């Protein structure tokens, strides 16, 4: 079931790279369907703790977790914001994919339950234990023990659905990939929040 697929993924897939599409659907409002925003890019990770989202559409943006510091770089704004990764991470889905090395690590921050299979995937639902976080629920979809989908619902019922394609599991990734150096001239802000 989903939990076995999650275990397989956490234990067997030490690193990976994939393209992703992200579809954000706003909640319906007075009968009108919510607005849909699409973005896409590439995603890579390496356990423990390293991951990287490179958004190319609708605008270039990089999110890099090097295991200690989480960087968000917006190319148009030419601004790089860094914050302590542990502080920012434990209630976000990226933690699930990248830093967890076992289910027990995940269960510190999430209640994990197998969910019924759908769309040809095995599903796990992860409900954040922290009540002050921004997320209401996360669902992970697996196929043959590899992550294919990550659906995140926030406290305002906005749904962000990441779908992964051409997932290359256990790909040897150069260490520099998870190291971020702000470009010269960029505004660099160490966020104390």
């Amino acid at each position: 079931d989903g939990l076995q697929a999650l275990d397989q993924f956490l234990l067997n897939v030490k690193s990976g790279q994939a393209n992703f599409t992200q579809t954000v659907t706003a909640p319906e409002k007075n009968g009108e369907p919510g607005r849909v925003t699409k973005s896409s890019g590439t995603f890579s990770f390496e356990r423990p703790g390293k991951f990287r989202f490179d958004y190319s559409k609708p605008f270039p943006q990089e999110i890099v977790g090097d295991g200690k510091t989480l960087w968000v770089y917006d190319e148009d704004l030419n601004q790089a914001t860094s914050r302590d990764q542990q502080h920012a991470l434990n209630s976000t889905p990226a933690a699930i994919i990248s830093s967890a090395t076992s289910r027990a690590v995940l269960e510190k921050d999430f209640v994990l339950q197998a969910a019924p299979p759908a769309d040809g995937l095995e599903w796990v639902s992860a409900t954040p234990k922290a009540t002050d976080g921004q997320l209401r629920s996360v669902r992970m979809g697996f196929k043959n023990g590899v992550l294919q989908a990550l659906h995140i619902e926030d406290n305002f019922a906005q749904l962000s659905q990441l779908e992964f394609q051409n997932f290359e599991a256990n790909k040897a990734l150069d260490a520099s990939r998870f190291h971020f150096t702000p470009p010269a001239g960029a505004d660099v802000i160490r966020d104390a929040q």
Partner: protein
Amino acid sequence: CTTPAIYTPQQGLWRGRLALNTEEERPRSYTASFELKGSQTQGELEVYNPLGNVLAKLIWSSQQAMVDTGSERLVSDSLDELVAHIFGTPIPVQALFAWLQGDAQQVAGWQLDLSRYSEGRISALREQPLPRTSLRVILQSPEDEG
């Protein structure tokens, strides 16, 4: 390089990204994408993280302003007061709505640059009073689905 996209404004609706930085000893920075509807007297602002989750929602009318982060709510009797509380420094909300429409309304202490407004770019810098604060906005044409 790619020609910059031309920004086509739409009345009472703005989508894009903002970066607000205050230069104190512990610098505070807010970088997020947003959707803003309405005007200074009545409106709603939603702020998102890169994954598209809503971080906070501000709703206001002329009598009251409220911010909801999904886990806590804060009510104030003025939008200006609420914005100052959230960002840790006062932001000229009334002028901001003018700037968003490309109207270069001057505000004491703020240096405004609307020279790239046709590309949807607004930047404003407040030297005085401290802390030094910079606000930069990049607007996306509302119907551009992204």
